[in-house]
């Protein structure tokens, strides 16, 4: 144990007892202080390195893709496997790993005597299909937590016709799996525990829709942590306006639980509603909004007269204004407060320099009025806190978003 370790070991309990004042040296000093600020050898147990399109993202990595690595174990054993190239996703809940990337044998979660499978959908119209299994999940240096996860396997059992466009493999998806750390404890919640729901199926001769108790649903592994289960901080550096080839930062687990996750007094908390949304106003129209590291741009309905037109095919998912556009949005908690302004820029996506894989200025159109999807660019250069549903932190009761 080094002197630094010793010092930290002593002062974590002091900080926990003080419950929330900004720490003298361990606390982040300012947004964007993230990448490299603590160094790769940092032994803090509640930190997962995040690579945005750098080492750790596998083949098929795409623009603004944040990747993490997680160790998965057969529950209660030392038989473990580390899987990298997992998409860090605050817009979904639960760990999902392609069967091609995980050779470990894991016990099935069952319902009515049959193994449970899930079809979970995403914003882009795709789905993940495969069995729900129980696994020991090790996040950073945290103790293993045993939770249901999903094995992504499009060929598993008798996939129902309603489960469309299942992702076939890591190369198609652009990652080996998804670490969903959204605001909720389970991916579906009460809505799936009471009735047939379109997500969960019990498989026997075929796979039939089934209700599933909360404890059997795919879980947010962060919520299961003994000390740091009340939330998380996504800490990514800013990148130059022209973009960068890659960036590295941290996923810090817990809020106000250790020296490295205490929000400074300038951080404001925005309460989220029952689906995890706050509100964003842009030129008069106010729409539901969410902060999603798993979306690789800022997606919103462009205000009339903003000049935000879609790029020509095949890049029509992105904005290509005649020149970069600066906009100011109003961010409001789900209950109407607080309310503050955020200024952001949308660059010409087609004009990104060659080799740029990280940009804070890429966006694209959604239907009117739609929603405001604050994807990864929102996280670049600011520490974003996510307080989990049903938990409380120094920022208040979750679910909440704060920066």
């Amino acid at each position, binding site marked *: 144990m080094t002197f630094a370790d010793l010092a930290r070991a002593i002062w974590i309990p002091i900080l926990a007892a003080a419950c929330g004042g900004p720490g003298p040296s361990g606390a982040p000093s300012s947004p964007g202080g993230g990448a490299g600020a603590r160094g790769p050898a940092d032994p803090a147990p509640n930190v997962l390195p995040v690579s945005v399109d750098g080492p750790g993202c596998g083949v098929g990595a*795409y*623009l*603004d*893709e944040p990747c993490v690595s997680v160790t998965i174990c057969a529950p209660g054993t030392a038989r473990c496997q580390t899987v990298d190239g997992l*998409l860090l996703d605050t*817009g*979904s*809940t639960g760990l999902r790993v392609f069967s091609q990337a995980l050779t470990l044998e894991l016990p099935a979660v069952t319902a009515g005597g049959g193994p449970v499978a899930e*079809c*979970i*959908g*995403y*914003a*882009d*119209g*795709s*789905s993940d299909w495969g069995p729900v299994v129980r696994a020991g999940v090790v996040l950073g240096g945290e103790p293993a937590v045993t939770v249901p996860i999903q094995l992504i396997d499009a060929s598993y059992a008798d996939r129902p*016709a*309603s489960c*469309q*466009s299942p992702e076939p493999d890591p190369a198609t998806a*652009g990652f080996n799996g998804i670490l*969903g750390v*959204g605001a*909720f404890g389970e*991916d*579906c*919640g009460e*809505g*799936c525990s*009471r*009735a*047939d*729901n*379109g*997500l969960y199926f019990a498989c026997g001769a075929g796979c039939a829709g089934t209700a599933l108790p909360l404890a059997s649903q795919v879980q947010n592994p962060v919520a299961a942590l003994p000390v740091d289960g009340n939330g998380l901080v996504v800490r990514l550096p800013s990148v130059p306006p022209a973009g960068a080839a890659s960036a590295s930062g941290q996923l810090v687990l817990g809020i106000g639980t250790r020296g490295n996750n205490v929000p400074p007094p300038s951080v404001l908390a925005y309460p989220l509603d029952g*689906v*995890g*949304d706050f509100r964003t106003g842009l030129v008069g129209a106010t729409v539901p909004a*969410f902060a*999603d590291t*798993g*979306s*690789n*741009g800022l*997606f919103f309905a462009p205000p009339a007269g903003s000049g935000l037109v879609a790029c020509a095919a*095949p*890049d029509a*998912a*992105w904005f290509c204004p005649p020149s970069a556009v600066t906009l100011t949005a109003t961010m409001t908690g789900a209950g109407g407060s607080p309310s503050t302004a955020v200024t952001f820029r949308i660059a010409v996506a087609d004009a990104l320099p060659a080799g740029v894989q990280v940009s804070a200025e890429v966006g*694209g*159109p*959604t*239907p*009117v*009025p*739609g*929603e405001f*999807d604050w*994807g990864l660019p929102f996280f670049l250069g600011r520490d974003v806190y996510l307080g989990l549903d049903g938990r409380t932190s120094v920022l208040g009761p979750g679910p909440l978003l704060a920066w």
Partner: protein
Amino acid sequence: MAGVVVAVGLIAGPGRARATLGELEATVDHDRVVLSMERAPPAARGGVVVHELGKPTVSVREFEGPSGRVFAVAWAGLARPDLAALMGSYHAAYRAAASARRTGRGPRRVEAADVVVETWGHGRDLHGRAWVPSLVPPGANLDDVR
């Protein structure tokens, strides 16, 4: 009469139950059964009749134009409804177009031969809509399709 029956069969596609997008209002009830949903009384908005189906985890709206055909459908909920049932003969074209390479992750618009599909949202809150441009009645506002 036989000719009409054959024509309907062709529209619906071989081996697939009749479904909704692009078809007559009478197929809304078919969807209600296939999707295991409750049906609310239809509501008229301008020249468009909106048929609403729902269950606790997902809701569906079908938009019927003056011709009596469903020109658009929209959905929202914890899960996506069975789009094969909801989009009927247009579903295969959507899936084929959607298999093109994506440029990342986020909301998506897919334009196929005679159908446009938009999807957006996040975990626990998935949204989408599909419409047939050639069937959209003059004056209908697609912003109302949601």
